[in-house]
């Protein structure tokens, strides 16, 4: 019996089998490499999240077994004046500190984007504060804001202004923390700087030929070309601002009179000081939902103001 071209068929089949085996081995390798991250996510993020979600429906003091109490924690939460106070504090802080931080970071990045002697030194200097421990920095700010002998009020006195009693005054304590938050703009600044350095120089040259001034170049080239970086910094800023803890805990402890009682501080108090873990879990979930909603809002709004070169019509 005549069998046409038997050899190539066997060769193709063998080749396909080899390719399949290679893909299979590659897949195994991929899973092995991914396993630590996936297992870490499952055990250290998703697991605790599921646990905290379940605990938020219980009365749990960690000392004894949790008791199911349905929606009682959430019901209590919405009638809890201090919860609303902490929500107000976190919201106010976020609304002011995030835009302020972005503006200051962008301003610094613009200044440090110049080619000049010693620029690397200045970039390091402005970035350095972000690598210093949060608690150490918080202690430092306590001294700076001392109403009588703090350097901030001494400087204000130098220009004829009597500074407030920052950390003990309900009106000024949150303002002090917002100012202190600027200490950490170095990280945001660095990302802006990377974005600025990615803007093609020919765009500015073309604009200059067309007669555009500095301000016009900034608003029509710089801002749109770094909008994706701004978007990234905004998302991280919102998440970070709603989770702020160390500064509030160390500098003011939530006081005076709960004027700096951030959600995370309130959560900590209930969990680790009052042993109301079930209630603290409910606060944590509300905080998570707020962060999620705001992040989604920023993402949804991004087509209106974020420009991606790769999405320009006519480009692949």
């Amino acid at each position: 019996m005549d069998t046409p071209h038997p050899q190539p068929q066997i060769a193709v089949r063998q080749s396909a089998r080899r390719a399949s085996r290679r893909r299979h081995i590659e897949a195994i390798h991929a899973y092995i490499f991914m396993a630590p991250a996936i297992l870490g996510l499952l055990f250290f993020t998703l697991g605790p999240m599921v646990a905290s979600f379940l605990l938020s429906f219980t009365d749990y003091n960690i000392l004894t077994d949790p008791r199911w109490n349905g929606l009682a924690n959430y019901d209590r939460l919405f009638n809890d004046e201090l919860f609303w106070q902490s929500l107000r504090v976190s919201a106010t802080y976020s609304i002011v500190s995030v835009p302020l931080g972005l503006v200051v970071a962008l301003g610094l990045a613009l200044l440090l984007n110049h080619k000049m002697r010693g620029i690397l030194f200045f970039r390091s200097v402005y970035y350095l504060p972000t690598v210093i421990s949060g608690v150490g920095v918080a202690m430092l700010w306590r001294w700076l804001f001392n109403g009588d002998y703090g350097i901030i009020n001494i400087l204000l006195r130098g220009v004829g202004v009597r500074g407030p009693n920052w950390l003990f005054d309900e009106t000024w304590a949150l303002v002090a923390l917002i100012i202190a938050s600027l200490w950490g703009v170095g990280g945001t600044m660095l990302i802006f700087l990377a974005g600025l350095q990615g803007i093609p120089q020919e765009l500015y040259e073309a604009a200059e030929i067309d007669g555009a001034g500095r301000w016009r170049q900034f608003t029509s080239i710089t801002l749109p070309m770094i909008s994706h970086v701004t978007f990234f910094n905004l998302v991280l800023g919102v998440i970070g601002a709603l989770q702020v803890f160390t500064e509030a805990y160390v500098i003011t402890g939530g006081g005076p009179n709960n004027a700096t009682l951030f959600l995370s501080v309130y959560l900590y108090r209930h969990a680790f000081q009052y042993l109301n873990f079930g209630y603290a879990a409910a606060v944590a979930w509300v905080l998570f939902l707020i962060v999620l909603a705001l992040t989604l809002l920023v993402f949804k709004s991004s087509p209106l103001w974020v420009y991606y070169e790769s999405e320009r019509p006519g480009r692949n």
Partner: protein
Amino acid sequence: MTHRIRLSRRQFLRSAALGGAAFASGMLAACGASPTTPTGQAPTTAPAPVSGEPTKIRALMWSNGPVIDENFKVRAQMFNDTFKGQYDLDLQLLPYDQYWPRIDLAYGSKNPYDLYFFDVQAYGHYRAGLLANLQPYVDLAPELMNAEEYPVKLYDAWRFDGSNLFGLPENIQVLALYYNRDLFDAEGLAYPDETWTWDDVLDAATKLTKRSGDETTQWGMDVGVMDIWWGAQTLAWAMGGGFFDRIVEPTKFQVSDAVNVQALTFLRDLIFEHKVAPTKTQRSATAQDIGIFQTGKVAMFFDGSWSISGFQDVPFKWDMAPLPKWKDTRVSAYWLGGHIIPKDSKVIDASFAFARWSATTYQKTMASNHDWIPIARSARESEEMYVGQPAGLRSVLGTIEGARLGDFYSRNNQQIFGEVLLPTFDQLFLGNMTPEEAAKKIDEEANALLAKG
């Protein structure tokens, strides 16, 4: 609530073998002394070596600075040396803010420490049914209840159920008035003593406050712990008041009573009316990182007896006196320090042996260490206790007998401290609230929390 004593079979057999005829006291035979003999003497030597591994005791204490921490480590070593081969105390020291979370997490993981130091948070552990009832152990160690040696009436605060002890005290603290002798000498003023009233304090503070233009260069006093609720309450007690109706499970805060408001007003006026004491901000600025009294810029300072060791190296002469009287009455606050044992510890008898040893044999060493105040009178009044110590210490310790507990025990006491008492007292002593407003706020909010239980 019922409480069962846990005694390991191995311990029982070991004790029986060692104690022989003293079998009836077998549970405490591990201490090396007959627990049924009310001698007031604690064991000083270990019983004969026994076979097998020593019983491991996991103990936890909060850190109190390098000097006291080192004393605690030495104490653990002394205990292990004394009971070599029988017990092995593994003592961990943690900063206070990590101490309670660690204990709570250990309970949560069903692996509690065998022994830890008491503070008010432990009442929550009692309420959760987690503490061992130590009364049966104490009953077998009658020397611990010798009223000549121990201020046993003050122990009632730790009889949470009204009759049984849930902790074994080993030290006691009271409030005191510390003063800078150099500043008094420079002004030519007599030193404070046990006859002083608050009027005398105010009079001296006025003379000792020095100003240069708008700036105060030397303060006559610092209210110290008197701007905390338990400090302020001592003055209210002396005036005939009190902030709540009872210590264990209070049912009512009554800070708005006229006499309590009067006490708050007096203390607040020292800062804002008489201006002889710094505000909180002036204090934090003056104190730097070493404490305001240690700077030498304050003539008088109110604090607990626990601060004595912290003042040892100050570059000026200082002494201490009892809290001043209000007219003829003085009431100080006291706090018991001691050990508590989880009922789920597998080595309750061994843990109690350490608690008992600390409250008896170790007391003289505590006296000579000059860190904390021994609970045993013989140690507290011993010569070692006063060697190199301020002359006024003896009279300060004399106020223990008439003192009242500076705490209250309720399930949510931490929430009442954190959400009501602390912020309201802050506002009061920052000058942002009148005493009447502060008292009203405390009563409303604290009573609401008490009602929630």
